[in-house]
């Protein structure tokens, strides 16, 4: 499979995530769109790792392992981020009884 297909697919998934962050107001949906963007990046990293292995695998047997380990670390960071972020959203819901991000404009005044 050509690498361009994977790049275009990842860009499309990433842009759908960006549109979700910009167009929705529900904090939880915005959070899910951030997860979508992280997954687009993960897919691209794995595709590049396999591309690198196809090009250099004959000389270096472990060429491309780094890319897949980076995906692993991105997943670790994403799991930590989700746990803290959802705790913040629960806290926000407890205080303002809404998850609408437009209510969080007190820094403006």
């Amino acid at each position, binding site marked *: 499979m050509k690498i361009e*297909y994977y790049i275009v697919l990842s860009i499309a998934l990433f842009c759908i995530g960006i549109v979700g962050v910009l167009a929705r107001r529900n904090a939880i949906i915005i959070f899910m769109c951030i997860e979508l963007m992280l997954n687009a990046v993960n897919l691209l990293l794995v595709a590049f790792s396999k591309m690198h292995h196809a090009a250099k695998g004959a000389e270096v047997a472990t060429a491309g392992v780094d890319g897949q380990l980076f995906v692993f670390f991105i997943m670790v960071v994403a799991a930590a981020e989700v746990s803290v972020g959802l705790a913040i959203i629960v806290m926000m819901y407890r205080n303002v009884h809404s*998850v609408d991000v437009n209510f969080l404009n007190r820094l403006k005044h």
Partner: protein
Amino acid sequence: MSITQVLFFFLSALALGSAVMVVISRNPVHSVLWLIITFFAISGHYFMLNAQFIAIVNIIVYAGAIMVLFLFVIMLMNLNAETEPQKNKWMKLAGVVSGGCLLLVMVAALKEAEVKGQTTEMVTGNIGLIKNLGQALFTQYVVPFEISSVLFLSAMVGTVLIGKKDAKEQN
């Protein structure tokens, strides 16, 4: 058209379609379910690239743990009713237009890319197997691995601190 290509386009269409549904569904619970389908499609891509460890971890961590956490929070807050107030139409349009512009610019930048024309290994190659990844993880990348355990510990402590009620409220 080989079976690999058919599977690739099927999984891509599934991932893109359900990603669009995540953004446009009104009900947050439906958004979570569509996002799970997206994650399964991306895991299918990993299987096709023979990155088996990443594929399994993606299903277990994302589709399993993280999405269940999202569902718990949504149901805890009783958000499954369609409570989101209507946003200004122009703001929505501006979001879609700016996202589309980014898509256009990045795809256009691909025209001059250095990697153009290279191919990925599809169902062969053994770097994605647990044996090879584990060897690299516990020799070359052992320090980041241990640091990530500290990160998890601090995230856990932070979550408990944020999530618990104030001492004043409890009295």
